[in-house]
């Protein structure tokens, strides 16, 4: 019976059981109502018929006296399916009629009997079983009592019949419901089993698996489809993660190897001063590695969105002017002029630290990649309100990034400079992008001077959504 228990755990089955119960209650009420109503109607008709007969018999007595009354009643009593006719003495003893006996006390009332009474009638096989009837009793002027009644067998039978018919119908419906219920439940169970089979495969590591979609577009299909979309996203993220870890392995192996070699070399150095220099080199190499790790951790935290809680209104103008002030000497030392154009009082909902770090990264890049370029001259930092949002851009006049590589440079560890001659982690723009994503903004890369293919420069724009006023 455990299968039944499992079945009953299904929501669909539980719901249909509840519906069946409600339906049964309604149906039972209906049965009783219908039978009661029809019984009342029939009884009413019976009373009418009896009343008419009473009038006729009374009229016969009035015109023809006892003789005509007896004849009339005799004739009527012989008809098939006849009514009940009794002539009784004043004390209630039956003198004549087509009834063998009646429930005692019936003749004590005059007029309609207050309730159905029981009587026995004559049949060919002696005395028949008991019947129920209602009757009207009236008294003749000679003291005799006349009872004219009608058997209640018809309405009673009718009531039983209706009730039976309804019961049968209910039983059929209930049976049907149970069958459907089992079928639905089984079907639901089967589909859920199929879904959990697929999920097990996915859990086992096969992310290319998808949940079955039946094609009917029902709720199971919709669930499967949204789970499948989720799986696609997970698979993509997983793929990205794998790529990143490949890159990490690759990009961290190189400096680690270098570090190891430097340490090995330092072991062989006997001269104190040279040895010290070598060791300092090792330390700065390790620091670079630590920076890389920090940057990676930072990006993944920003991407995970866990800093989102720390968002507050920040004055972007102030951050930008801080950055300009912080980088101005560094730019100058690199032979560049850092100019800034900052619209005042620009505020965004965000995280000051992260936005600051993003701007610093962009300025670092701009200075790093344009300082070697002849005539690069200047780096411009600009904050302005635009119709599509708030734009913060850093423009340099260095070699720039070809249009087809722009998506790549944002990726982790991607650096156009294959020789890696410039210091850097290859993570700067990745962090900027993650920061922009966190702020519901976007990152745009474009040429500073599109008409100078050799030295087109790079403009990186951080577009923040316009703050709802």
């Amino acid at each position: 019976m455990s299968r039944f228990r499992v079945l009953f755990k299904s929501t669909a089955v539980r719901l249909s059981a509840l519906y069946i119960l409600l339906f049964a209650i309604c149906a039972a009420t209906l049965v009783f109502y219908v039978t009661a109503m029809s019984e009342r109607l029939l009884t009413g008709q019976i009373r009418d018929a009896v009343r008419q007969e009473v009038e006729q018999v009374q009229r016969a007595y009035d015109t023809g006296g006892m003789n005509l009354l007896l004849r009339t009643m005799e004739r009527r009593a012989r008809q098939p399916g006849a009514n009940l006719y009794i002539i009784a003495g004043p004390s209630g003893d039956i003198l004549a009629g087509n009834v063998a006996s009646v429930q005692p006390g019936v003749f004590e009332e005059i007029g309609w009997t207050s309730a159905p009474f029981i009587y026995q009638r004559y049949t060919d096989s002696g005395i028949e079983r008991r019947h129920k009837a209602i009757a009207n009793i009236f008294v003749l002027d000679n003291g005799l009592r006349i009872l004219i009644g009608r058997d209640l067998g018809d309405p009673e039978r009718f009531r039983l019949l209706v009730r039976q018919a309804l019961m049968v119908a209910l039983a059929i419906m209930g049976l049907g419901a149970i069958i459907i219920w089992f079928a639905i439940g089984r079907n639901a169970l089967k589909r859920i089993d199929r879904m959990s089979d697929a999920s097990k495969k996915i859990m086992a590591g096969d992310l290319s698996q998808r949940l079955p979609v039946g094609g009917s577009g029902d709720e199971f299909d919709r669930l499967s489809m949204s789970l499948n979309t989720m799986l696609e996203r997970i698979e993509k993220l997983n793929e990205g993660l794998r790529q990143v870890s490949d890159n990490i392995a690759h990009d961290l192996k190189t400096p680690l190897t270098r570090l190891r070699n430097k340490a090995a070399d330092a072991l062989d150095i006997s001269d104190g001063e040279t040895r010290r220099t070598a060791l300092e080199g090792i330390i700065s190499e390790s620091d670079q590695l630590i920076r890389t790790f920090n940057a990676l951790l930072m990006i993944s935290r920003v991407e995970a969105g866990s800093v989102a809680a720390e968002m507050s209104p920040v004055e972007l103008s102030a951050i930008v002017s801080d950055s300009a002030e912080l980088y101005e000497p560094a730019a100058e030392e690199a032979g560049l002029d850092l100019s800034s154009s900052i619209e005042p009082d620009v505020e965004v909902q965000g995280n000051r630290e992260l936005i600051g770090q993003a701007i610093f990264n962009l300025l670092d890049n701009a200075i790093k990649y344009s300082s070697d370029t002849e005539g690069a001259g200047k780096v411009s930092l600009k904050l302005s309100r635009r119709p599509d949002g708030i734009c913060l851009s850093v423009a340099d006049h260095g070699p720039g990034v070809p249009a087809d590589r722009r998506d790549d440079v944002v990726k982790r560890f991607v650096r156009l400079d294959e020789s890696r001659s410039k210091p850097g982690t290859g993570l700067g723009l990745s962090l900027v992008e993650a920061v922009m994503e966190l702020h519901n903004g976007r990152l745009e890369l474009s040429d500073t001077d599109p008409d100078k293919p050799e030295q087109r420069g790079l403009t990186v724009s951080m577009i923040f959504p316009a703050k709802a006023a």
Partner: protein
Amino acid sequence: MSAAPQENALSLAETQPVGNVGRMKILIIEDDLEAAVYLTKAFREAGIVADHASDGESGLFMGSENTYDVIVIDRMLPRRDGLSVISELRRKAIHTPVLILSALGQVDDRVTGLRAGGDDYLPKPYAFSELLARVEVLGRRKGTPDQDVVYRVGDLELDRLSHEVRRSGKEILLQPREFRLLEYLMKNAGQVVTRTMLLENVWDYHFDPQTNVIDVHVSRLRSKIEKDYNQPLLKTIRGAGYMIKDEG
């Protein structure tokens, strides 16, 4: 490593004056034994006595029973987490400066850490030079409440109220940011301050400047305060940061 320090601590605690006189004494609460052994040794080499506790409860006990100049605490500890150790210490009115080490480097973690009563926050992984510099600054801070109006290093004077800087009585004009840079360096005269500490305290951004931005500011400042004088004051400590000091 974990049993011995307690006696050690008691013997030293009562006799050593706190502050910049004598050796600094710190407590490291860190459950990673290897890291703790390394830190203890590295601090000893830097002239700092370091005790070690390997879980929150014993760290809290040692921190409350002994007098330390600085407590270095890991955030995630067995038996009692780092933040709760700090709050408990503060509740007991123990105001030893606390530096929190944490693998949780998020911006808001720093805020929660400082709110719990920590005095400084260093995300892992960190360079030891960074930790050392911060511990030394924290240890020094304890002894000298920051009440001086005028900072002096050799013949260099910085007046925090009038914002005037003089060397040998001659006024040196500084940009506001250069003034704050010099103020921070002089406040911690004789201590190594790292680039990260400068970015934190002068610019109020909390991360590791990856390039030479800070160095350029420092060398500008240096040229202003040292240009016409023979005696260098502002030194670059290789692999660590900067220090302002009068070598006499």
